[in-house]
């Protein structure tokens, strides 16, 4: 099988990947903890 010299298509930049969503949500949670919205998270 031979494939022409086409470029590997990249994801559309405006669409966040699962990785990026995880980072956004985790950072948001960290900021809420920092702001004192969540004072104590039990375990």
């Amino acid at each position: 099988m031979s494939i022409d010299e086409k470029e590997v298509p990249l994801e559309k930049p405006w669409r966040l990947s699962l990785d990026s969503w995880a980072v956004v949500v985790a950072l948001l949670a960290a900021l809420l903890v920092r702001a004192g919205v969540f004072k104590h998270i039990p375990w």
Partner: protein
Amino acid sequence: MADAVVIPQVQPVQPALRFLRLIPGVLLLAAIGYAGKLLEQNVGKYAKAHHWVFPNIEYVLWAILLGLLISNTVGVPEIFRTGVATYEFWLKAGIVLLGARFLLGDILKLGGVSLLLVAIEITGAIAFMTFLGRVFHLKPKLITLLAVGSAVCGVSAIIATKGAIDADDEDSSFSIAAILALGALALFTFPLIGHYLHLGDRAYGIWAGLAVDNTAEATAAGALYSDAAGKLAVLVKSTRNAMIGFVVLAYAIYWASQGQAKAVGNKAAFLWQKFPKFVLGFLLISVLATYQFFSKDQVGALGNLSRWAFLLTFAGVGLRTNFRDMRKQGLRPFAVGAIGEVVIAVFTLGLVVGAEKFFGF
């Protein structure tokens, strides 16, 4: 034949509906994870009260076992599947939050050592898996997928490589099934071997991070040993994950030069697209914690939040593992994966023991 790992066709769905579809599965993850936590707290007490000899089983193992029980008996009903698949999201969010429990100095010290070990592991694993695949007469692209999956980071690496080298769906299904099956085995064998060899938390955590392929399984295998080992397994595994772009790019260029894959245009954009962004999030939170952006109590709260996220992940690892489906995948790729993994596990164990003596970590 390759029907264990089915990549679902994505239909255009309203975002609100997509979100609603996640809820049943996420609730199932939370229920199983929490049940695991309750079992950890209560089974030991009950056994002690009744004078039974019962091992202290941690919530990690309970959550995985409960998930395995459901997945391999009644199965996971369709309504839960979309939400159960979010366990990867919880894993990555948990890793980012775990960054608060690492000071930058620790990361630089351990990261430097682990980077060296990871470089040796990746080179050795790719070379050995390629050799083994040729001995077993596997298809060249299947060999590439197995090599990347076992050397770098399991399923994510296989999916990233599949797209970059135009591999068949069947080959990627084989590779993913083999890597998942071996990851499930590693969950149970690694802690036993670690205890048998009396490995310290650090040595064991680094070993689990180096040798267990999938990030979820590496995190679980570390946490099953101890909290400290779990932290280190995540750090080393994240270092491995950070290498994914370079390895996939190298293979993409190789297969394009053979006329069997599309050429890579913008290499920097390619690397950025493949780079796991959660590693950057982990480093950012760690920098913030190092410069005391968070108080001590807040660091504790973030650590607990990370544990809750991992709790959902561990439930998902159990629910995702179906032994019947894995058996359908055929023996040869699994045999290559299994032999490769055993050799890589022994090789990395030697590396860690050697590095421990040399660097004294």
